[in-house]
């Protein structure tokens, strides 16, 4: 936020901006959460998911949101305390928006047992809260409109250059993979596809996932694309970023499948097959996260 602006701002402007931020968060939660809020399997998971796995997912979401808020807010000069506040607000928004939409869709009714309602809301709140944070950054950022214009002129509060550490780069990929995985993992199609595929299909899927990941970030000139410095062979970044990124996507896939109970009593080969299937959207999500965030 621009320092000069802040000094001039009165309380009314301050709270108005806060409300705009909230609105953007809510919009993001809805935009990114709606595919999951309208997925039958996720409603069912809400009451049959093992409680301690759900608990773990809810706990894991907290540091994830804080780091993400810090990352998104980082460029806009936010502190750790602000990141913590943003993460809390995003989680809260996720819960509120999920419950409101589930009630509106008639999926939560007063006669239902409390634990069922809670489970349904809790499982939806995770992707919705990530959406809320993304909404704040992607639908305009946490600064006001005036700052956006400033930014275009290059004189805003955004530093011209920021460095992303290697660990953080992998973390961003994990968030992207997790987000897309949560979208598709609960559906029965994932395991059905895994059962239909032969190992040959799986091989092609793996190679395609890795190639798409690399192409997304380095070859196709999207906004936010990554440049390889002159004189560095392409396989340098392939080994340092793309392959670890694919492993991150695989790990997240396994975690999400396990959370949804898709790996129980399953042979290792079958686990690997479903993970490969799920890592395909995961890889796309991971690559997209590197571009967007």
């Amino acid at each position, binding site marked *: 936020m621009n320092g000069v602006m802040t000094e001039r701002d009165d309380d009314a402007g301050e709270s108005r901006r806060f409300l705009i931020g909230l609105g953007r968060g809510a919009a993001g939660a809805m935009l990114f959460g709606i595919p999951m809020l309208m997925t039958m399997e996720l409603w069912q998971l809400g009451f049959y998911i093992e409680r301690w796995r759900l608990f773990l997912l809810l706990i894991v979401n907290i540091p994830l949101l804080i780091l993400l808020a810090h990352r998104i807010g980082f460029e806009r000069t936010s502190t750790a305390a602000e990141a913590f506040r943003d993460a809390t607000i995003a989680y809260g928004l996720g819960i509120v928006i999920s419950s409101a939409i589930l009630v509106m869709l008639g999926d939560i009714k007063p006669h239902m047992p409390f634990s069922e309602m809670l489970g349904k809301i809790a499982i939806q709140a995770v992707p919705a809260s990530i959406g809320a944070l993304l909404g704040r950054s992607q639908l305009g950022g946490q600064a006001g409109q005036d700052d956006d214009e400033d930014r275009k002129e290059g004189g805003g509060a955004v530093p011209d250059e920021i460095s992303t550490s290697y660990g953080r780069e992998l973390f961003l990929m994990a968030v992207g993979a997790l987000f897309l995985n949560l979208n598709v993992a609960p559906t029965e199609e994932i395991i059905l596809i895994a059962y239909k595929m032969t190992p040959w299909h799986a091989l092609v899927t793996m190679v395609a996932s890795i190639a798409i990941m690399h192409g997304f970030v380095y070859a196709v000139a999207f906004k936010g694309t*990554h440049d390889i410095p002159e004189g560095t062979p392409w396989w340098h970044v392939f080994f340092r970023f793309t392959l*670890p990124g694919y492993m991150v996507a695989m790990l997240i896939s396994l975690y999400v499948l396990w959370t949804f109970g898709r790996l129980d009593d399953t042979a290792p080969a079958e686990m690997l097959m479903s993970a490969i299937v799920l890592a395909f959207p995961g890889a796309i999500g991971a690559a997209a996260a590197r571009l967007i965030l």
Partner: protein
Amino acid sequence: MTTTAKNRHTEAREPRLIEWATGVVSAILVVAMIGWVGYEAWMDEDMPPEFSIAITARTQVEGGYRVEFDIANKATVTAAAVTVRGEILDGGNMVEDADVTFDYVPAESKSSGAILFSQDPGAREVRIRAVGYTDP
């Protein structure tokens, strides 16, 4: 390290050791995974689904009797819509039967379920067997 300048990211020219270490570990994992799947693709013989069923528990429940069982598929192919029928036999005559359908019994894996009878089989024989399946 990646440096972001005005929405362009440039990878650092001189990466740190940890980046290479992670890269090498990942490369090994990816190669191992491809190797494993490749081996399976090579060795792949389509054994038709083969089930074995083991009764794990019998419990008296309200208004009936529950027989729980595990169904394992030993083959390398997954079966869908597996119908399992439980029968109470009294000296070769069927006294009662009940069906249950599994959405999937994955390859080399097991699923569990239960059949609910209206009466206690007591000392009579309980037979549980898979009667059909579809390919997914």
